């Protein structure tokens, strides 16, 4: 099949492109930087809508805490711009380059919001959706429309921007986004506790998160995972490592680290650089990436053929779910979000989805984040939804894209 790529350089052109696709009955593969063919359910389209031409920050006013940018703006342009004003996207967007054996620092703002991903600070600062204030885009009817607003507090009309986060380009081709930005912490430290098993570790993380000390990261790395860290103190701990992050103004960080050490105990406190490095690994699932030597060698695993799952669960259930996954599968995993997020790398088997979702029951949901295309064709990449929710989701999809032009089937069959 010949694949056409259409590369609009304005929102109006993007609308024209969708209308053209609509008139031809040609579904579109909606791409930001286009590097992520390995995402979600594989789709087959004869045309790619490449949005990298819609690039550039439109407005950034640090005092207003908002940034407006065209959807194809590279993250590599946005993040340094924020850093210069000592601000950040507080949801800590992930960079999964390491996981996929691809170069880091790829991706566009539109891609990040469409994927709706968030890092360890999810527990305190929220997810991508919580920071998405306004959008402009083209629905599957070819209409260029806007939703939300460009100020941090707005309840005018439906909160359409929330719905865009995590919709994987199936509802609207985003052309412009307004996101909330927040001050970047002045300092960061991490308490390290060594040698806990899962349940004990999650209990520590729970205690940390129940404290009044604004913990902004709470992760547990079982021994084999910790051993792979590039942060020496973590790898050298010689066993499982439990991590509690504290961020903020200098004197506040010092005081809170002292208080938490008193309450939880700590075998070490990681300094600023070590902290930043280890939380980046946790955030980017670097532990399950292909070995550095093979980085860049193909997608979907490099030399690491294990499937990677992202499992969201209520924190207190984390250890139980992890235990039953290990019992059923050859799996290696670690915990983020105080036990509420499990990243699992499992040896390829036909029924890992069944085993993982069986272990979960109704306690959460699981997404297949890395697997070769043939697996993702047959597996349910995104967690199957209860029938009434699925039916409603289909109607929501139709309300934006009645003819199924945008990324058809990327999330769910028929959606």
């Amino acid at each position, binding site marked *: 099949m010949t694949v056409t790529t259409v590369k609009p350089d304005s929102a109006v052109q993007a609308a024209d492109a969708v209308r053209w696709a609509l008139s031809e009955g040609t579904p579109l593969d909606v791409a930001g930087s286009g590097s992520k063919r390995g995402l979600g359910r594989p789709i087959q389209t004869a045309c790619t809508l490449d949005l990298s031409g819609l690039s550039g920050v439109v407005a950034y006013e640090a005092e207003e805490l908002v940034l407006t940018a065209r959807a194809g703006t590279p993250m590599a342009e946005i993040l340094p711009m924020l850093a210069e004003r000592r601000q950040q996207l507080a949801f800590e967007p992930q960079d999964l380059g390491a996981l996929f054996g691809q170069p880091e620092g790829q991706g566009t703002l539109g891609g990040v919001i469409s994927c709706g991903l968030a890092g360890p600070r999810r527990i305190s600062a929220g997810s991508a959706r919580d920071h998405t204030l306004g959008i402009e885009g083209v629905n599957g009817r070819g209409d260029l429309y806007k939703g939300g607003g460009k100020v941090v507090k707005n309840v005018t009309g439906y909160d359409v921007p929330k719905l865009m986060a995590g919709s994987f380009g199936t509802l609207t081709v985003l052309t412009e986004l307004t996101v909330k930005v927040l001050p970047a912490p002045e300092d960061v430290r991490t308490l390290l506790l060594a040698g806990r098993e899962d349940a004990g570790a999650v209990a520590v993380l729970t205690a940390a998160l129940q404290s009044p000390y604004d913990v902004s990261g709470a992760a547990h790395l079982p021994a084999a995972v910790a051993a792979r860290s590039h942060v020496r103190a973590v790898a050298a701990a010689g066993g499982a490592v439990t991590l509690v992050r504290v961020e903020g103004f200098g004197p506040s960080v010092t005081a809170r680290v002292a208080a938490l050490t008193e309450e939880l105990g700590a075998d070490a406190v990681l300094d600023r650089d070590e902290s930043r490095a280890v939380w980046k690994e946790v955030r980017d699932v670097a532990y399950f990436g292909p070995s550095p030597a093979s980085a860049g060698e193909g997608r979907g695993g490099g030399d690491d053929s294990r499937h990677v799952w992202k499992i969201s669960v209520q*924190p207190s259930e984390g250890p139980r779910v992890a235990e039953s996954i290990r019992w059923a599968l050859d799996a290696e995993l670690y915990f983020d979000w105080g036990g509420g997020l499990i990243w699992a790398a499992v040896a390829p088997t036909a029924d890992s989805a069944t085993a993982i979702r069986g272990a979960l029951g109704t306690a959460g949901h699981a997404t297949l984040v890395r697997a070769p295309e043939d697996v993702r064709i047959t597996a349910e990449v995104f967690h199957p939804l209860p029938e009434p929710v699925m039916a409603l989701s289909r109607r929501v999809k139709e309300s934006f894209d009645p003819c199924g032009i945008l990324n058809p089937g990327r999330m769910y069959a028929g959606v």
Partner: protein
Amino acid sequence: MRMPAPDDGVIARRREIIAALRAIVPGEGVIADESELRAYECDGLTAYRQLPMVVVLPSTTEQVSWVLRTCKEMGVKVVPRGAGTSLSGGALPLADGVLLGMGKFNRILDIDFANRCVVTQPGVTNLGISNAVAHEAFYYAPDPSSQIACTIGGNIAENSGGVHCLKYGLTTNNVLGLEMVLMDGTILRLGGKHLDAGGYDLMGIVTGSEGLLGVVTEVTVRILKKPATARAVLIGFPTSEQGGDCVAAIIAAGIIPGGMEMMDRPAIHAAEDFVHAGYPLDVEALLIVELDGPAAEVDHLIDQVAEIARSKGCCYSRVSTSEEERLSFWAGRKAAFPAVGRISPDYYCMDGTIPRKALPLVLHRMQEMSDRYALRVANVFHAGDGNLHPLILYDANKPGELERAEAFGNDILRLCVEVGGVLTGEHGVGVEKRDLMTDQFDEVDLDQQQRIKCAFDPDGLLNPGKVFPKLHRCAELGRVHIHKGELRFPDIPRF
């Protein structure tokens, strides 16, 4: 403001409808007596009143489901209602509609400290949740001023906020799960005690949907540990520009206060006369900045804030040294609305958001409007997030004043949009700002929002006449008008 014309056919079937509802909700759960219906004729926007055709007060999700399904089958409109504190007329009844009161859903179902969440029925008050977890020093962060009375269900519908919101988020940022019932009776569960519901963020679109998409029957919210300390600074400025500059400088310094509120001269005077909070009376703008967190952090930042205030030319500054003093700073701000009520027979509370930098311009233009409409205005302002609450003073007994106050209010909201802001920051659109929606959104934008409505409620029976200025039929909104070959070929780079 006009509501959709009542359907006489439906009103003619009133008895039949009441009988059908009584078969679902027995006894006192169905109210049809006119004197008792009176209690439901308006919400917090008292300028508009309408007796509902009938009130039903279910107490289980199954009953809600049956009520909605039955109403759908009989073609009857439904207006959900929590505590009725909405200031935008969201719970205003319809003459040909059922008012669905959620007051009996008043139990907290599960307090889960380990997972830091509470599962509750929607009729529990906002403050009720915080009170239920206070013994472990937890609280529920979003704190609308109406928190003693308003329900969490109403908070979800309005995406309510309060002074804490800049730092801790609105309702939408603090909800983990929902159970809701669609107009056809379908019961859905979204999210739960885990993060990120999975699939489309339906919870995100339901939150703030003003009762137009479904009826919320259960809510799971995130709770937080109370900060160890809170301290406040009271800062006065000779001009509102300086006050605004100070707010911007605090944020630019990387400080996100737990609360940051501003009052203008009329509001300061009214509040001081009422509660004697000790506010300075010779300033044009008064800022309350509250910092919360560990003592070491609060002490560190409070000095910084005082320093920033000095550099921006403050003429008054007082740092709270005790909990009592901190509360006294807030007493005036919290009593600002009733305080203004004492100096005017009536007042109309507006609610719009602006980019903060536009504050001086907006205040200036508001003063011009005040002169033009010959009505006074007092301003309280969630300064951190740019959410204005102008209070327009009027006397409903003087002919024409209410209409003038409304026209003035509309002009203010249009101004908010003109400077890059939005029509409402926390009170919702309801019926109040419905006809102004076209100032913020064009027809294409509104059509897309109404198509979302169609996905949830294709017959448009749930709370019609609110939020959207024009009612569309879903069939007509659904048509796609593009046909092969009709389109002029676009001039787009291709490869």
